[in-house]
């Protein structure tokens, strides 16, 4: 292999990208757009979930202490940003509204709520108190948020009254103190964007080279197949790194994403991923005859990574039998590694396995790419 020729290819690919406004848009605007959409839409918690509270609790007049009304206390403890509360007197109408889709839940306190609660605090009684929750489970996320909110309001109320639950959960945040959705999302989308655009751009570039005849033309010069692949790899690892720097800077400025570890590690992982992806793009191009066929590869490139890389949801959220397939999706490794570095602050000693996986992917795919270029008619 000749370094001069590798650099010549690398520079040529660079110029091609720079001169092509479509590629530039793909590299820069699309990831920004996705970050903006997700950043604004999922800027953390869900808010303003409409619920109706029907409070029939009559409270209790206790000597010395005075009037006690637990239902009111619970309601006060509900976060009014999370739940958008409407009050109603009639349980039947409230439930009708719920059924009509005007609210996500009805929270009902019966007349004896305070009385029952008091009774249940007294030892050796079997009394219990209940908050009745009528809930629309058609949106699981919202329903869960409502249940969590009601539970925590209840617990807060108990604590205020000196009665605590027999068992409590003491939480110490090991990693990711105050982590929000974007802290999880940015390291993922960076890898995902680099994966998508590197694979797609090399695929298109190589179908172009095959169709226009430039590929066979340069192969009639001293240039070797391995030098072409190396030149592409060099350019795309640099472009991928620049793309990730750009996205992470935007992530910091716009969403204040956390960077606990050494960010250079993230760039290294992303550069490795870019090398894997450009080899994948070259390999795929050998299965395409015409430029239009690039579009047919799009689902093949996007779907596995979308579903299995863990970019949008954790791998634990996909069925257990499908999880091993994520090992075949290269961005999974860089997403896991980037998250660990950025949120957990892990170093090379902890993420080296992901890097080794990417190196193995790179070696296999680069070899296959070179072989696919050597195949002659």
């Amino acid at each position, binding site marked *: 292999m*000749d370094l*001069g*020729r590798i*650099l*010549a290819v690398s*520079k*040529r690919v660079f*110029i*091609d990208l720079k*001169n*092509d406004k479509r590629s530039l848009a793909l590299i820069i605007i699309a990831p920004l757009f996705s970050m903006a959409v997700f950043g604004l839409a999922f800027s953390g918690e869900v808010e303003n979930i409409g619920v109706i509270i029907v409070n029939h609790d009559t409270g209790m007049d206790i000597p010395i202490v005075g009037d006690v009304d637990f239902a009111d206390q619970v309601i006060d403890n509900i976060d009014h940003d999370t739940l958008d509360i409407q009050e109603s007197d009639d349980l039947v109408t409230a439930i009708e509204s719920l059924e009509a889709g005007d609210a996500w839940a009805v929270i009902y306190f019966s007349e004896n709520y305070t009385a029952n609660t008091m009774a249940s605090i007294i030892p050796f009684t079997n009394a219990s108190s209940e908050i009745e929750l009528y809930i629309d489970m058609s949106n699981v996320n919202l329903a869960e948020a409502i249940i969590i909110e009601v539970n925590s309001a209840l617990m807060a109320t108990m604590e205020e009254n000196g009665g605590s639950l027999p068992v409590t959960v003491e939480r110490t945040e090991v990693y990711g103190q105050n982590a929000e959705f974007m802290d999880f999302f940015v390291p993922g989308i960076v890898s995902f964007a680099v994966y998508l655009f590197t694979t797609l751009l090399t695929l298109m570039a190589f179908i172009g080279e095959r169709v*226009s*005849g*430039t590929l*066979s*033309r*340069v*192969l*009639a*010069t*001293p*240039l*070797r197949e391995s030098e072409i692949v190396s030149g592409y790899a060099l350019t795309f690892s640099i472009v991928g790194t620049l793309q990730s720097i750009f996205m992470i800077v935007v992530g910091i400025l716009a969403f204040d994403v956390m960077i606990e570890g050494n960010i250079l590690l993230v760039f290294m992982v992303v550069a490795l991923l870019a090398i894997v992806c450009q080899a994948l793009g070259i390999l795929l191009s050998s299965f395409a005859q015409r430029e239009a066929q690039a579009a047919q590869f799009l689902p093949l490139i996007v779907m596995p990574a979308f579903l299995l890389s863990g970019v949008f949801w954790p791998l634990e959220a996909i069925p257990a039998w499908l999880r091993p397939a994520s090992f075949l999706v290269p961005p999974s490794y860089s997403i896991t590694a980037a998250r660990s570095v950025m949120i957990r602050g892990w170093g090379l000693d902890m993420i080296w396995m992901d890097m080794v996986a990417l190196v193995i992917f790179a070696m296999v795919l680069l070899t296959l790419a070179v072989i696919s270029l050597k195949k*002659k*008619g």
Partner: protein
Amino acid sequence: MLAVKTDKLTKNYGDFKALDELELQVIKGEIYGLLGPNGAGKTTAIKVLVGLLKKTSGTAQVLDIEIPNKQIASDIGFMPQETAMYIGLTVHQNMEFFGKLFGMTKEQIAIKEAELLKFVDLEDWKDELVQNLSGGMKHRVSLACTLIHEPDILFLDEPTVGVDPKLRANFWKYFNKLKENGTTVIITTHYMDEARNCDRVGFMRQGKLIAEGIPNEIMKDTGTDNLEDAFLHYATIGEASDGPTPDGGGE
């Protein structure tokens, strides 16, 4: 003495014989025209000789080296039939890229580039993206890129397609100049009229050479005044006798 020598060179696409035991000999320093209708196998022959296609059987030497062999790549210049330029690059960037593939320095490239751009009359378009050029202009850039490293042997596949007559005349002048410097030039064309400019021509049909010779002698021998008719003459004989007439002088 011979720049190209093939022996029973055969290339099959499945059952189809694109080259059928081709016997081709090109003398060092000559301009050799490979003529024939579309589908005759001219492009296939060139692609096998420059190492882009695997031969099915037979042997071939280019510059005395048995092919395929990457070693000869630096000595050959190949201009494909399709334009095959990087359209997202400027004319200059294309030429610089090809120069670098042959290990040329920036200075060497600059000198050669200036000379070639003058020859193909594209000096004013040096910094234009190739995608903005007309078909004929792209073809000229392509030729310039082929010539940048001063190859010893040139394989030009239909270099004059879409080039206007005046510039075409220029092309031939330049090819003759290269020849004077010792370059061997192999040109395919299906324009029979311009093939008169070649030192020798070979007629290809169905993957075989059906006749070969010096243009004037071929016309004399066949009693025709152009190569088109001469080709038809050989093609008809070939069909009648169902065999090749490898030597045009034998008629």
